[in-house]
């Protein structure tokens, strides 16, 4: 399968989990990655800058209207929802919080599923709520591939467990396994 994009949702404990995945991806990893990590609405946009220093990939905060490019990693800015348009551009909104969160993982995953359909991989990492579970269902519904972090290996197991409980997760993997697995199926 020729995957065209990877979406990742993470919450409590997510920064170190993301760091581990991003750090271990090779510089020639071309499948674009779009990330929603829950952050406080008051936080500054430091995450993309921080992660970019660790990686050979281009890691940046998503801009509204931006075209998704290979070899790029996009991160939802604090206090905005990140959506994917069906013409494969990124967009931002300031709508109501979903699952008490802005950015919301469900919003990213549900819109990504409509855009990329079966050529999408969705990954749920550590977190303390159930955001992303509806998104995982939608990705599965459109024939995409779904992965959850092994709850026992997650800093906070609730979010990956909630995703697994939907019955729509294809693979349950530890953090280390996730990186190797996506490299193997995307290259």
């Amino acid at each position: 399968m020729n995957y065209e994009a990877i979406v990742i949702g993470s919450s409590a404990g997510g920064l170190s989990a993301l760091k581990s995945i991003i750090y271990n991806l090779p510089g020639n990893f071309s499948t674009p990655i779009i990330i929603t990590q829950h952050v406080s609405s008051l936080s500054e946009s430091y995450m993309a800058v921080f992660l970019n220093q660790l990686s050979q990939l281009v890691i940046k905060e998503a801009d509204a209207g931006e075209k998704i490019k290979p070899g790029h990693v996009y991160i939802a800015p604090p206090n905005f929802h990140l959506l994917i348009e069906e013409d494969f551009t990124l967009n931002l909104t300031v709508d109501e919080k979903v699952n008490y969160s802005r950015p919301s993982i469900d919003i990213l995953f549900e819109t990504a599923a409509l855009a990329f359909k079966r050529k999408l991989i969705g990954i749920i990492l550590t977190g303390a709520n159930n955001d992303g579970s509806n998104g995982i269902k939608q990705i599965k519904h459109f024939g995409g591939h779904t992965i959850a972090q092994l709850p026992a290996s997650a800093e906070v197991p609730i979010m990956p467990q909630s995703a697994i409980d939907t019955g729509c997760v294809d693979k349950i993997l530890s953090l280390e396994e996730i990186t190797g697995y996506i490299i193997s199926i995307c290259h």
Partner: protein
Amino acid sequence: MHLPDQLNNIQNIELTHFFELIFNVYGYDFRNYNKAHVKRRILNRINNLGLKSISELQHKVLHEEGFFDLILRDLSINVTEMYREPGFYKSLRNEIIPILRTYPYIKVWHAGCATGEEVYSFAILLQEEGLYDRSQIYATDFNPIVLETAKKAIYPVSKIKEYTLNYQKSGGKNSFSDYYVARYESVIFNQSLKKNIVFAEHNLVTDGVFAEVNLIICRNVLIYFNKELQNKVTGLFTESLIKGGYLGLGSKENLMFTDVFDQYQVVDAKEKIYKKTIFSSK
């Protein structure tokens, strides 16, 4: 039963048709909004009502009295807060107010004001800078229902802690509680803030220039529009500004990719504040 891909194609066709129809019947134009957001809103509405398709929703919009108000609310951008992104207000206070002070009379257009929180934020700022009495604020939105809320200046008391923090970060000079009275679960802002504010219906997509102003504040509205509509609306702003007037956008909005960019200089790149150049062609 359609396959997911087929159903999605059908929904896209129905949605395009739905917006054409709303424009023709009610005059509200959502045809050039970014699709992912409005589609999500409409599909949520269908699920909430237990309907099967956008076509069913369309039937209700056409034939059930008052139903369109619900759709208008779904498609309005109503999330706002006082001193949203406080750095923006700090920049207005430090960079723009000293220039506005040189004019005998100051006109401000707050476009897409929703429930008015940011309008009162700026009104307080003008009072603190001693400019309120020679200012006129036009606060507009396309949705008459949110404008009614804006006119009341009554907000939930639960938000006040966050707003107070924002106010302080924005460079507020007094105690924020000077500006409101708390009553039960609400706070009501001082009547004196309303004196020079005119709240009015105005649709950025379909309506034109109504005044020439020194400052336009329009935050987190353009992100909902496609490129074509962004060009149209920033064109409207450019026509409405005096030469040397200022435009303040949301932190994720950028004039750089619009047709009017060469008529502006950047005042604050982070807070997205622009100045229409004296030598502008319009």
